[in-house]
């Protein structure tokens, strides 16, 4: 969307708008974090700090087989040789890895048979979040694998899924029951030496979700995991692995929140997706970790590595994301299009407010013939925030007829924020067609004026315009998420236009 600034409108009217906007801006910036509360659940943590001993303890606590410990130690040793990347358009305060608790699990780890057995405090937490497990179970048919502080608490609908041979469980369970699959696919999309945070995650990850869709199976419902950081001083390192076998389909959802904390908390997750022949994986996420207060104090450092591999012929991977939280977001969901005729899409809305910083985007690596990728990135920055799109489209010499279309729009709300675009396009094949376009603009006074004229208040007008702006991406989200995402955007942005 390109918003034109039109001059020549009555200047006194402008002042009124500006005044209104400043007032609204203040209201929004003074808004408290909606999910800021601490659940009083007993957590089982280990001592602060990171060394080989800590990794051995994590592995032992989780009762892991030998190959997992090897994997972790190898990653840790590799991590020690790596340096924190500095290329992103981010100001990251130094992170003291010895001051972080690398493992925090809710106690009472017994496997619950029914919801009644679940810690009532935990259930109340979910209710506050608006994610009542029971209701969801009955009404929406969404199977939820809730991960609190990195350990999976409850997986619903497991039996229904098991009938079709679909495996949807916590990562630790998968390590116990399906070690062959884990051994084969873990680290395939994101190798341990991929980057600093991927190496860290590989060394210390506590839990996450595991999905396997067998050949020719269409997953009958959307699979969903809910992550939440609860305990203090803890880092969350979850690991998600999704494998879609030949001719299968799955839509997977991930949502995140974290309660309000003064100090910064670290989150370094890894998500790997493997799509085999003609398989289709749709991955959607709404990220709403605590972004820090309006002075930029506290908040989550979100350093995430997500990558999918279109391994087979005509496989498809779709990344859909709505990013509204975290003090710092560093996230590039990527696709390697290896199989011929494979398709990848990346749709993103990233919103930053106050002192949030986001450096997010995607990588599309075209290797197979006739591969197609689409990138739609919508950045919205407000307050003093900084929002960057950083993306790479690479076409290998043998990727005949590769096709990419990228569109990166930035919307600026307020005069102290920044919007940046850093696309990298590397093309080595003459039959490919690669297009990239980007625009940066603010909401035009003329648009607001148009709405006002028709009796729509400035606040509603801004809501409408922002929603329209993000609509293209939100429409790609599954129904449940689309509603939540839309609400999130509205809460975050009501009137915050300058």
């Amino acid at each position, binding site marked *: 969307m390109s918003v034109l600034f039109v001059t020549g409108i009555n200047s006194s009217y402008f002042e009124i708008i500006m005044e209104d906007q400043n007032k609204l801006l203040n209201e929004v910036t003074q808004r408290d974090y909606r999910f800021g509360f601490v659940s009083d659940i007993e957590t089982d943590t280990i001592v602060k700090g990171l060394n080989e001993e800590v990794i051995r303890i994590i592995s032992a606590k989780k009762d892991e087989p030998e190959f997992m410990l090897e994997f972790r130690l190898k990653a840790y040793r590799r991590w020690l040789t790596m340096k924190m990347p500095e290329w992103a358009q981010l100001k990251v305060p130094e992170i003291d890895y010895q001051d972080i608790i690398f493992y925090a699990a809710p106690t009472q780890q017994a496997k619950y048979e029914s919801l009644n057995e679940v810690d009532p405090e935990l259930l109340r937490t979910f209710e506050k979040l608006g994610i009542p497990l029971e209701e969801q179970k009955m009404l929406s048919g969404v199977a939820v694998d809730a991960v609190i502080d990195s350990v999976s608490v409850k997986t619903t609908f497991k039996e229904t899924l098991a009938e079709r041979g679909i495996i949807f469980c916590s990562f630790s369970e998968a390590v116990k029951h399906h070690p062959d699959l884990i051994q084969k696919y873990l680290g395939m999309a994101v190798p341990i030496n991929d980057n600093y945070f991927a190496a860290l995650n590989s060394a210390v990850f506590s839990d996450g979700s595991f999905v396997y869709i067998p050949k020719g199976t269409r997953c009958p419902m959307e699979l969903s995991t809910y992550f939440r950081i609860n305990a203090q001083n803890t880092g969350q390192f979850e690991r998600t692995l999704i494998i879609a076998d030949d001719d299968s389909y799955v839509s997977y959802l991930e949502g995140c929140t974290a309660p309000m904390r003064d100090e910064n908390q670290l989150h370094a997750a890894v998500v790997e997706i493997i799509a085999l022949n003609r398989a289709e994986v749709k991955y959607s996420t709404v990220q709403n970790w605590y972004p820090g207060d309006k002075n930029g104090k506290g908040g989550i450092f979100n350093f995430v590595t997500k990558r999918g591999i279109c391994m087979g012929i005509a496989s498809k991977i779709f990344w859909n994301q709505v990013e509204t939280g975290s003090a710092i977001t560093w996230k590039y969901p990527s696709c390697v299009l290896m199989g011929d005729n494979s398709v990848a899409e990346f749709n993103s809305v990233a919103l930053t407010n106050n002192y949030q910083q986001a450096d997010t985007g995607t990588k599309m690596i075209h290797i197979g013939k006739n591969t197609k990728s689409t990138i739609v990135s919508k950045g919205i920055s407000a307050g003093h925030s900084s929002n960057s799109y950083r993306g790479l489209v690479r076409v290998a010499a043998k990727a005949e007829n590769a096709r990419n279309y990228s569109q990166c729009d930035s919307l600026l709300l307020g*005069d102290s*924020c920044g919007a940046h675009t850093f*696309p990298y396009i*590397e093309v080595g094949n003459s*039959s*490919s067609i*690669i297009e990239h376009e980007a625009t*940066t603009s603010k909401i035009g006074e003329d648009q607001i004026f148009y709405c006002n004229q028709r009796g729509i208040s400035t606040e509603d007008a801004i809501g409408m315009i922002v929603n329209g702006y993000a609509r293209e991406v939100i429409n790609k989200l599954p129904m449940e998420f689309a509603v939540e995402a839309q609400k999130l955007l509205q809460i975050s942005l009501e009137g915050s236009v300058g």
Partner: protein
Amino acid sequence: MADVLEKISAVQRISGLLDNNLSKIEEGLPAWVNQIRQPALKAFQRMGIPGFRTENYKYTDLTRLFGNENFRRAYVPDDFEVDLSEVFSCDVPEFDTHLILVVNGWYDEKSNRNTTYPDGVVVKSFRRAMIENSDLVMNYYAKLAPVNEDPLTALNTMFSQDGVFIHIPDHVHISKPLQIINILRSEDDLYVTQRNLIIAGKNSQVKLMICDHTLMPQQFINNNLTEIQLGQDAVADIYSIQNQHNKTASLSGIYVHQEQGSQLVTNAITLHGGIIRNNLKVLLDGEYASAKICGLALSDKNQHVDNYTNIEHIKPNCESNQLYKNILDDNSTGGFTGRIHVLPYAVKTAAYQRNNNVLLTNAARMNTKPQLVIDNDDVKCSHGATVGRINDEALFYLQARGINEKEARLMLMFAFAHEVLAEVKIEKLRDVIDKLVNKRLRGEVSKCHSCAMDCIR
């Protein structure tokens, strides 16, 4: 690891060259010029030889070029017997220019001495300007192009001795274009440093052409830096035509500082060359200043052409517009980095950028990196980049009308290139460049018909 060792040694070797030849380099130049050499050296040592690890040089690795060279440096001008300006006498009607000849980075006093300029316009050797016009030159020298931003700039400042100085006084419109011809001519492999300064006064107008040529088959590295100051309401058109042989490395930097209401047009046409890197930095430092920046590169064989632009919008109400195109054949590689930076107070900015590329073979490679860095909300900014092939439908359309495929392809490529050429405002020059590009696309040696040498006049 070997790579790292090589890098360090090249930096050391080049630093050594400065130390060992300091008296020759500094001789006769005022102290304020020589004082900047040491800070430049420090900056260069800090940044090192730019390679793929340097973000701004990600797609142009110069470590090998500098690692292997041990070229002669011309610390004093080479003595030539032939008056080169004779060679260039040509008779294109109604297209004449004030000719300024530069040989191996040195202003050619011999051939330039007979040229006179109207209305107080000063064109002289940069060396003489540094001595004779100290007061004026020191305001701009190494200030428009600070040494700590770019390693090639630091390198140039370390070794700078001569080049061209042009001063257009306030309110002077010079109607006849100025033409700088840079000639590389040496019996052995040569490393050339050239430094130019162009000052266009208040409300002045100037058109400038810069042609780069190699006359000998030896290897050359040409590190050419131009600082340009545009005063209030000044209008400057700068066209450069790079037509060198494939063993030449041309590393050029242009730094422009624009004041209120000034207008800049640049157009860089690259026809031939080995490794070409063009850096262009424009500071829009006055309200209502505008810059139109274009470039076209046609490359084949193992050529490498990388255009880097950095447009800084500092003041409100400025406009910038960039258009770069590449056509890449054989094993050639192309790079483009276009950066638009809008500072917090530069409201009402309009900044556009477009980069279109055509790959003709699978061995050719194009890397493009358009960037927007926007720190304020009252802007209209966009960029677009495409890499693709000749449009099949257009090709079919032409073939259906009886034009054979080869000719149809050429027509389409020419049309693609012409969008950039159309920005050349000197009509005669545009026609000449049109012809050169046409011939270049046909694979013929691009020589201007009416000239003895392959230059355009």
